[in-house]
C-alpha cells in the first residue's frame, strides 16, 4: 500500500507545483476552428454520455496571454460551464515491445500524441510564458522553434515567433504561441445533441467563439443488466432473510 500511496502523493505534489499542458490519447468528439485556431475536444469515452464526463480541450497554437473558455449547451438550452485545468505531462521510458503505442490513453484512437505547454492552474486558463522567451526577437533565424521545458515539465513544447523578419527585411511582430491542452469535468443530464462552445479571448482582442454539435448518449450500464443483477441479489437476500426468520420462529 505504501509503495502505491507515496508515488501517487508525489505525483499530486508535482501536479500542484509544476502544471504543464498536454493532450491525451483520448477519443476526439469535436474539432472546431475558432478564428483560425484549430481546437480539438476529446472525451473520456468514445462519445459524450450522460453523467460525468472529462473533456480535454487542445489548441494547437494559442497566442500568449489568450484564454480558453469551454462550455456545453444542451438540447433544452441548458448551459454547462466546464472549468478547465492544465494537464501535467510527465516524462518516462517508452513502453511496450515493438508497437510503440505506449502513450497513456488509447493510442489506437488518435495516436496518443503528447504536446504540452505551460499554463496556470485556473479557469479559464491563461497560458504562461516561459522565461526563455522574453519577447525579444533575435531577428536572425526567422523560424519558429520549439524548446524543451525545464525538469518540472519535461515535455514542454512552446512555439514562439520572435521578431520574425519578412523577406523584404521588415520586422512584423512578436507573436508567441503555445500548444494548449487542458481538462475539465462536466455533468450532462440529458442525452441528445449538445453544442460544444469554445471561446478564445485575448487581452486586447474581441473573444472568438465557435460551436460544434456532439451527440450525448445515455451513460452507465444497460438497464436490463442492472435490473437482472439487482433483482437477483435483492430477491435472494430477501428470501434468505425471511427464510431465516421463519426458521427462527419455527424453532421457538
Amino acid at each position, binding site marked *: 500500500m505504501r509503495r502505491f500511496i507515496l508515488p*501517487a502523493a508525489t505525483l499530486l505534489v508535482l501536479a500542484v507545483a509544476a502544471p504543464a499542458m498536454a493532450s491525451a490519447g483520448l477519443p476526439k468528439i469535436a474539432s472546431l476552428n475558432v478564428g483560425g485556431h484549430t481546437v480539438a475536444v476529446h472525451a*473520456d469515452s468514445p462519445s459524450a454520455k450522460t453523467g460525468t464526463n472529462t473533456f480535454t480541450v487542445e489548441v494547437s497554437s494559442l497566442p500568449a496571454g489568450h484564454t480558453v473558455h469551454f462550455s456545453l449547451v444542451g438540447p433544452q438550452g441548458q448551459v454547462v460551464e466546464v472549468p478547465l485545468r492544465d494537464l501535467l505531462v510527465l516524462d518516462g*521510458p517508452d513502453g511496450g515491445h515493438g508497437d510503440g503505442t505506449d502513450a497513456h490513453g488509447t*493510442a489506437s484512437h488518435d495516436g496518443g500524441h503528447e504536446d504540452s505547454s505551460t499554463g496556470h492552474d485556473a479557469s479559464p486558463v491563461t497560458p504562461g510564458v516561459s522565461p526563455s522567451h522574453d519577447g525579444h526577437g533575435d531577428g536572425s533565424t526567422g523560424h519558429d522553434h520549439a524548446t524543451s521545458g525545464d525538469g518540472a515539465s519535461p515535455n514542454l513544447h512552446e512555439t514562439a515567433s520572435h521578431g520574425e523578419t519578412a523577406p523584404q527585411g521588415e520586422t512584423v511582430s512578436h507573436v508567441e504561441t503555445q500548444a494548449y491542452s*487542458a481538462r475539465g469535468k462536466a455533468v450532462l443530464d440529458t442525452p441528445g445533441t449538445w453544442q460544444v462552445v469554445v471561446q478564445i479571448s485575448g487581452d486586447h482582442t474581441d473573444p472568438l467563439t465557435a460551436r460544434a454539435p456532439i451527440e450525448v448518449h445515455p451513460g452507465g450500464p444497460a438497464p436490463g443488466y442492472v435490473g437482472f443483477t439487482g433483482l437477483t*441479489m435483492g430477491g435472494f*437476500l430477501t428470501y434468505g432473510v425471511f427464510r431465516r426468520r421463519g426458521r427462527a420462529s419455527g424453532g421457538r
Partner: protein
Amino acid sequence: MAIQPKSVLQSSSSVPLSRQQQPYNLLNLPWLKAFLKSRWFPAVLSYPTLVVFTYIVYTLLWGPEAPSSNLGTSLTWVLWWPLIPVFMFTLGRFWCAICPFATAIDLVQKVAGLGRPVPAFLKKYGIWIIDAVFILITWSDHVFGIVESPRGSGYLLGLIVTAVVVTGVLFERRTWCRYLCFLGGLSGNYSRSSALELRATPEICANCKTQNCYRGNETTPGCPVFEFPRTMQSSANCNLCANCIKTCPNDSIRLSPRTPTKELWFMARPKFAESFLAVVIVGIVLVQNVTMLSFWEPTMEWLTSSLLGSRTLAFTAIFLAAMGLPFGVMAAVAKLSGASADESFHDNFARFGYAVIPLDLAGHIAHNLFHLLAEGKSIFYNLAALFGRHVTGPAALLSPGTIQALQFATLGLGIAGAMYTAYRIAGHSKANSNKLQTLWPHLAVLLLFGLLNIYLFTMPMSHRV
C-alpha cells in the same frame, strides 16, 4: 489440554523431522502471531479492499468508457491482475482471505445466510465447473471485450457478485470460493508452487479433542473453505485467513517458508481436473498471445468468410483449437510416458500435469509484467484525476528492453521449475518403471511450451489501457 512443546514441529509428511529439518515457523515472530490472532485480521485489510472494489465496480459501470481514463480498468487489469500471480507465488492464496467476494459472502451470511450444506455435485464437479467458467470467461473476453472495455469488466464483476450473493445466501461457509470461483481454481493451482505453507503439527493435533480449526469456537468461525488443517497437505485451498491460528487451543498451526514448487513434487492424490486446468492455461496464454501476431487478422478474415461470415464463430474455432492443442500434445505425451511407467494415460496426465503449473505461473507473471511495467503509470494518472488533478504522459515504468529481459528471466525460471518438477514427479513412478523413459517426453513438451512462450513474448503486445 496441555500445550505441546514447539520442538515437535513437523513437515506436512507424517515422518518426524530432526531439529535441523524443522521448517522455520513464522509464528515464532511475536508481532506476526499477535497480528494474525488479532480480531483485526484480516478485517483491517479485507474491508478496505471491499470499499475499493465497490468503487471499482461503480467506476467500471458508470465511469469513463475509454479504458485509459478509467481508474477501475487500471486498478483491475494493470495493477491487480498482474500482481495476483506474484501474490500467489509468494503468499499462496492470501489474496482469497481479503478478497471482496469472500468479504461479501461473510456479510451476506450474517443477515441472510441459510447455511445449507454444499451439494454433492459441487463437491464432485466443482473443479470442472471452474475449468469451464475459466475457459468461458477467456472466450468472452475476446468475443465481447472484457479487459479492454470498462463496461465489459464491470458486467463481469457484477455478474460474479450476483453469483457470490446467491451462493452466500444458500450455502454454508465460502462454498463459492472453494467450489466455484474460477480465480480460486487458478489460485489453487498456483498456490501449490508458493513459497509459504500453513500446516498443523500432527503430534499436537493427535491429542486434540476440539477440532476448533474446522468447527470454529465462540469468537471465530471454522475454516471458511472446509479444510481440516490437521490433515491438510496442500496449500491449494488454504487462504491464510488465520481462523485456525486463532481457534487452535494448542498452538499447533505453523506458518513456514518453503521451497517454491516443492508441493508439486509429492502429490499424494493427483486430480485429472486440476492437471487439465494447468494444461488449459497454456492454451489460454497461447490464445492471448496469438491474437497479437501479424497473421492473426488475415487468418480471422479467411476463417470468418469460411464460417458463415461470423467472426464469433471463427474466433471460437481458433479458440477451441488453441485450447485443444496443448491438451492434445500433453495427452499424447502422457500416453507415451504412461507406457513406460506402467500406468494409464489418465493417471500419467494427472500426475505430470502439475509440472506445467510453474510454467503457467511464470507465463502469467511474464505476460502481465508487460502490462504492469509498460502501463503502470496509468494508475497514477487516473488516481490523480480522481483528486481533480490532470496528469498524463507515457504510461511505461521501464523501457521495453528491460521489461522483455524481465519477462525472459521469469520464463526461464518457470521452465526450469517445471522441468525440475517433472523430474521429481518421475522419481515417484512405480518401482518397476523406467523413470528416464517416463520423464523425457514430459521434459520435451515442457521445453516446447516454454520455447513457444518465449517466442510469443518477442512479439508486439497490445496494451490494456
